[in-house]
């Protein structure tokens, strides 16, 4: 085939239509209330699981939907256009839990956890960040000490999305006293196990319907066969996981940007000042034009990275570009959406106020914009 195909396949279009129906009928109507009350969207997650959204790329043999990355990103974009909180709950479960289990888990771990995670019976969380290990994720201090056929984990993880509700945690800890990335291993830990507790639950600017909390590990005994991937190779697991995760966040950002655009266009058409719709003022048109252009560009970057991923090609740089551009587009578009709404945009009765608060996180988690630029620059300079 010659050239580039920008058309979605029939299946992808039908998936988009189905998830869009779900998002507009079931997610959108409750999003403002979930945000206002900071309530975890339990019922929506159960419905999402029914549709197969909790394990989009998990093979059917493990209870998933067996779809590709494009399908996954289409789904996250649609959900995020209605509720960014619900989107991140789903994205974390897919990208940060199911995906590393699938890629690095033993057959036993896969059989034990994937069917539950993919069908909504279990929820996952990802425990990498620590007080001293944020952007510098290799500075993990949580310790794993070997005791017979167990590892004993002690340390504190912070900012864990889904931490309050999760059943299964992927935890990064230091098994070897090598410096930096080299001594880190990844583990699959059940939250029910002795020694695992939920610490401080954060109050946030946005994505309020998703929980963010500390996960405290105190002498938590983890069977040795719950090591995810090889010993001391955990940082590779973390990085490869984040490549995929960043695409999930890009999709969340594109969904937010698109919603900001659609709502602003509709508002501009009906809001009159100086005797005509504000959509007739060129200043407003230009904002809408730029929002549309950037949103499309972000989606194209994201889909390109997804195609590379599905073809098994390297896509770290492309994922970083997509995440960087999409998240900055979401923030920018939300900013313009509030501007187009004027005073009403600043008021909670209109959804753009929520979009503005929700968009900011996309520039921070799964690698800040600065870290994405650093990743891209290293590729540009051949320093990776």
């Amino acid at each position, binding site marked *: 085939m010659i050239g580039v195909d920008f058309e979605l396949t029939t299946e992808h279009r039908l998936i988009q239509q*189905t998830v869009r129906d779900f998002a507009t009928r079931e997610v959108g109507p409750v999003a403002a209330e979930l945000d206002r009350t900071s309530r975890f969207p339990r019922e929506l997650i159960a419905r999402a699981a029914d549709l197969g959204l909790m394990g989009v790329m998990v093979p059917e043999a493990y209870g998933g939907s067996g779809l590709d990355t494009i*399908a996954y990103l289409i789904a996250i974009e649609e959900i995020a256009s209605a509720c960014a909180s619900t989107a991140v709950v789903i994205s974390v479960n897919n990208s940060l839990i199911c995906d590393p289990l699938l890629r690095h888990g033993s057959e036993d771990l896969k059989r034990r956890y994937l069917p539950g995670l993919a069908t909504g019976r279990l929820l996952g969380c990802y425990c990498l960040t620590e007080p001293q290990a944020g952007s510098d994720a290799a500075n993990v201090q949580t310790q794993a000490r070997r005791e017979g056929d167990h590892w004993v984990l002690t340390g504190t993880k912070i900012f864990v999305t889904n931490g309050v509700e999760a059943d299964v945690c992927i935890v990064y800890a230091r098994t070897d006293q090598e410096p930096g990335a080299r001594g880190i291993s990844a583990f699959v830990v059940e939250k029910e196990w002795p020694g695992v507790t939920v610490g401080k639950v954060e109050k946030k600017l946005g994505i309020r319907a998703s929980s963010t909390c500390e996960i405290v590990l105190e002498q938590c005994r983890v069977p040795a066969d719950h090591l995810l991937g090889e010993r001391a190779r955990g940082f590779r697991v973390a990085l490869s996981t984040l490549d995929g995760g960043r695409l999930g966040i890009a999709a969340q950002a594109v969904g937010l940007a698109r919603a900001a655009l659609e709502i602003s266009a509709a508002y501009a058409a009906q809001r009159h000042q100086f005797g005509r719709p504000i959509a007739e003022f060129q200043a407003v048109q230009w904002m809408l034009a730029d929002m549309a252009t950037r949103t499309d560009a972000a989606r194209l970057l994201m889909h390109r990275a997804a195609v590379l991923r599905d073809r098994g090609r390297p896509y770290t740089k492309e994922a970083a570009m997509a995440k960087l551009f999409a998240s900055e587009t979401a923030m920018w578009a939300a900013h313009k959406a509030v501007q187009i709404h004027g005073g009403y945009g600043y008021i909670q009765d209109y959804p753009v106020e929520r979009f503005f608060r929700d968009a900011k996180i996309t520039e921070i988690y799964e690698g800040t914009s600065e870290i994405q630029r650093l990743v891209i620059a290293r590729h540009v300079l051949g320093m990776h």
Partner: protein
Amino acid sequence: MDIIVCLKQVVDPELPQTEFAIEPATGRQVREGRPLVISTYDENALEVALQLKDRGGGKVTVLTLGPQAVISDAFRLALAMGADEMVVVDDPRGPDRLGGEKAAILAAAIRRIGRFDLVLTGCESADWTERVVAPVLAEALSAACVTFVSRVEAADGTLMVRRMADEGFHRVEVRLPAVLSVASDESNRPRLPKLKDILAAKRKPVHVWPVADMPAAPGDLAAGVEVREVVIPQRTTRCEFLEGESAEQAAALAQRLRDLKLL
């Protein structure tokens, strides 16, 4: 129970009115370039069929009459929702035929499908709103018929159905085989397909039968009706100012509304 659901493809009724056009020469609705969807109540009929299958097993076949070339993705979703197979009677003129004629062709297709216990249609189509397909089908198939059915319960070789009525409903027992036309109800809101079933739907059988192969209808089921003219109603708005003090204006307004039979 083996169920056949007749699904009609129509121009999306949610489109803005400005998208609705009629070819002056032929009186046919312009469909080209418009998104095509499954007619509203037909989806409710499909949901009823799938619920009956979920509870009692059997097979659900969806049947549509229309130009195969423009059969839309929506039908793939019908298969993804849980229908087992699909029959397309390929008929370029399909969408422009009158209800009786369409029903006669559908009846021929149903006889060719063979076994069935129940045929479901929507209670009316989103474009022509003729409401005749179900009764004519029942006649042609010598089956029982109930129209405007909101709920269906299978009971021991018969069906208990709710038929919508003014200010209430009838409970009707129907013997099989039967043809029911289905109205929307909270119990038959079309389900969303699971994502994996969207992929799997691709592998479900789709049979395409040319309309010419459908044996002619017994008798002349479409006779007696001819569409002479199709018009889009012109809506105009006029603004009238009532003079005087508030009380006088109110009285005048009440009088005007009464004159217009709005009060």
